[in-house]
């Protein structure tokens, strides 16, 4: 048997679903950030697989993946900044205790 586009797409969907579950079900803010990274990685796998199997030699999916990696790096920097700010001022890392904007 050979490896086709469907294999990569199912793997991508698996990573995305696991990340989605972690994002919705976890309390620790750091673990939520890690789950978001998993989702972005799953999307990247699909992008590169489409680029390789549908339009080989055009690198469109590669460019998308590079921009997704860039935005993911920016998102982690901001997310961890918010985490450290909240931890320093209020001593919480639990996302369900972050209710500063609730009333």
């Amino acid at each position, binding site marked *: 048997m*050979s490896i086709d586009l469907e294999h990569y797409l199912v793997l991508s969907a698996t990573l995305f679903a696991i990340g989605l579950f972690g994002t919705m079900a976890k309390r620790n803010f*750091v673990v939520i950030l890690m789950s978001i990274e998993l989702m972005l990685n799953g999307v990247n796998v699909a992008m*590169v697989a489409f680029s390789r199997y549908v339009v080989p030699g055009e690198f469109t999916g590669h460019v998308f993946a590079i921009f997704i990696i860039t935005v993911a790096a920016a998102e*982690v920097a901001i997310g961890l900044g918010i985490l450290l700010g909240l931890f320093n001022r209020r001593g919480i890392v639990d996302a369900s205790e972050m209710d500063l904007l609730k009333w």
Partner: protein
Amino acid sequence: MVAVAAFWILAASAVAGALGVVVARNVFYAAIGLVVSLIAVAGLYVTLDADFLAVAQFMIYVGGIAVLIVFAVMMTAQLRRGSQTNRLWPGGLAIAGLLYLSLVSGIMQTDWETSSGAIPTSPMVASAADEGVRLPDVLFSTYLLPFELAGVVLLVATIGALVIARDDSAPSL
């Protein structure tokens, strides 16, 4: 044959690492699972002839983001609560499972128009005489404006993270 074996090993590692992130009770073990998953995805990029992306994934995710996350885990380690699930985790599991099933059935039922044309050799090892288009040709012509905007996004994120994480009680310079 080697490519098939490589795909299955890397895919199993990626999924196992991802499961480790959501299952582990210890936040540090979750970070280790994330690193395993990211390295496996970098290997998958190699099997997809995306050498540059594999190296970029390894340097940015494994070298940068993973270190940042481990650093954050250690900064907040005083709270020994671990990685718990919230009250709504069965609903989250149901939503994620439903999305997964619908995605997989959609993938299986779609007749993908894959190209049977010649698949070029890896872009980074292609000889200079090869007239085929390469990744930098696309990135610095068609996508030049998004490329510059990505730089602006990184600059704004850096300054924003510094401002947010700054300790107000520290004496200002």
